[in-house]
């Protein structure tokens, strides 16, 4: 990539090459702020280009909603010229459950179990993002131990999500389940830990406003330590099995390239954005919770193709293991919930708040407006899978339908979150 995309690096480069002169750094001088707005040029996205003159007859195919490769009830209306895709329209809404209006009908606490069901692979990150938004709204502080528990559960969730994603992606390429079963085997161990802590394997409903619901059961930290210590062995095996695999490379190299400009302008977040080489991770940008205490790096891709997105997941799992090891080492004793927070009749003051975290799939945000009653006045979610899906057509155009399945798989969607 010839264009400097990482602005910090570009500034450092300018300083190093002497483009910025020290005299300019006069603190009394009026500060000339950069123009407001994004660091990247905001380009309105063009409508789908006109379909070029086909060689033969165009063929319209409706893939889904019950196709096994669409990861749920998702439909792609594809227009094919021979084998090449010239147009792709995602159709969704089959799993719409009215989540946002439902959230305005239930109490703040009553909506917590519904957030589990958004992205049902990562219920604990959803809990955290929602709790963060409500805590911002009500101005609550979270005890130290609860912050550590939140980091541990969220990073375990990331391991669950990324390992299953790698399995599913390879399954889409036709590996008939071997990597998927290996991934699910590891996921199973983490889900056992979730069940021991929260009582449920997937619908955890564990975080509360101002902390966590219960303290860790005895022996739980040792159980997680065993999982975390054995996890790098699984990643190594996965990498030896897959990363240099001929089929995987042939199917993914140069497929579904997402240019960084398009990724930024379309609002793509998460591993897909970082695979395009843009250094944006909310754990580093926002430093929500206690992420400023941990040493970890943000992996970045170069080309933004499916292989980079696959690799991003593998590398992020390694970084998550590092965070987990530090959190498990440092976790203090203490209370896990602020005792002043009332469970029933919880009424945050009038106001609005937006809480966001780096969920495994990207930026997950909850926007809440309170009118001082027991229920939110307005409740809105910024789901990462839904927004990452908007660039699907741009990535798929010119590839075959078999590639579109892989590109969709690498976007990492969960329809519970797309449709809500």
């Amino acid at each position, binding site marked *: 990539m010839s264009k400097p995309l990482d602005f910090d690096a570009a500034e450092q480069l300018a300083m190093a090459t002497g483009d910025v002169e020290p005299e300019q750094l006069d603190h009394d001088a009026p500060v000339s702020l950069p123009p407001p707005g994004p660091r990247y040029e905001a380009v309105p996205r063009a409508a789908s280009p006109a379909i070029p003159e086909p060689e033969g007859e165009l063929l319209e195919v409706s893939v889904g909603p019950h196709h096994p490769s669409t990861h749920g009830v998702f439909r792609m209306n594809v227009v094919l010229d021979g084998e090449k895709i010239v147009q792709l329209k995602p159709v969704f809404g089959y799993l719409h459950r009215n989540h946002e209006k439902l959230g305005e009908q239930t109490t703040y606490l009553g909506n917590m179990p519904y957030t589990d069901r958004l992205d049902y692979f990562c219920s604990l990150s959803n809990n955290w993002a929602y709790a963060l938004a409500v805590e911002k709204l009500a101005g609550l502080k979270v005890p130290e131990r609860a912050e550590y528990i939140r980091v541990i559960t969220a990073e375990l969730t990331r391991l669950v999500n990324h390992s299953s994603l790698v399995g599913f992606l390879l399954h889409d390429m036709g590996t008939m389940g071997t990597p998927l079963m290996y991934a699910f085997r590891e996921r199973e161990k983490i889900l056992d830990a979730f069940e021991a802590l929260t009582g449920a394997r997937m619908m955890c409903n564990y975080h509360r406003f101002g902390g966590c619901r219960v303290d860790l059961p005895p022996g739980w930290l040792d159980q997680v330590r065993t999982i975390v210590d*054995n996890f790098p062995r699984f990643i190594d095996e996965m990498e030896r099995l897959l990363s240099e695999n001929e089929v995987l490379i042939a199917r993914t190299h140069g497929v579904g390239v997402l240019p960084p400009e398009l990724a930024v302008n379309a609002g793509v977040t998460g591993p897909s954005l970082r695979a395009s080489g843009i250094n944006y991770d909310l754990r580093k940008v926002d430093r929500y919770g206690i992420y400023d205490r941990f040493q970890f790096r943000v992996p970045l891709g170069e080309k933004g193709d499916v292989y980079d997105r696959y690799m991003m997941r593998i590398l992020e799992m390694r970084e998550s293991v590092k965070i987990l090891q530090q959190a498990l080492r440092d976790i203090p004793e203490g209370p896990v919930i602020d005792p002043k927070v009332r469970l029933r009749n919880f009424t945050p003051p009038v106001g609005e708040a937006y809480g966001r975290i780096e969920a495994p799939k990207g930026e997950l945000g909850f926007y809440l407006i309170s009118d001082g009653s027991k229920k939110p006045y307005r409740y809105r979610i910024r789901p990462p899978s839904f927004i990452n899906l908007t660039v699907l057509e741009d990535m798929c155009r010119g590839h075959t339908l078999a590639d579109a399945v892989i590109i969709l798989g690498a976007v990492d969607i969960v329809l519970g979150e797309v449709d809500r």
Partner: protein
Amino acid sequence: MIETARNFVGSYYDPARFPTIQYPEERQPLPENSRSFPILIYDGEDPEAGLRCVACKICEKECPPQCIYIVVERDEKGRAKRHPAVFDLDISVCMGCQICVEVCPFDSIKMDVAFEKAGTDRFGRMLLHKQDLARPNEYFHQIHPTEAAQSDERVGKTKKAPKPKPKPAADAAAERQPSRLAA
């Protein structure tokens, strides 16, 4: 290839590589915190008289999918007795979030661990009445020992001394916390 072989051979002796079990015949012990559907706890012998529930309807109000239905029992003069005449819970609607357990001030509703609730009929067998939901406190001690000990402490009863004629724990709790009843 080597990795596949290692996993294949390893699955014969390494439990970390072969975690599956033959489910209906073989069962894994559930962790203590495991939860499935709510049950109602009673003290003593009689599931009707010993029921801790006082029909305060807090769980009915707080239940997110609204799967609980309670009717208060009344005496001849129409005054509310601290006892539910009807306590229905539709487990086809219940999502097992255990918010009812958290909000219950009388330690009456708790989570079960039995998860095999399949039925042949969509409506009848899924709607549980209070006699289906009632479980003795000893059962609660069996499934969640730590939580049951804490709950006994709160209810103010000793662990292994059910009195011959137990005063309903709910009443005892209600006397201690009259202000919560107003809610």
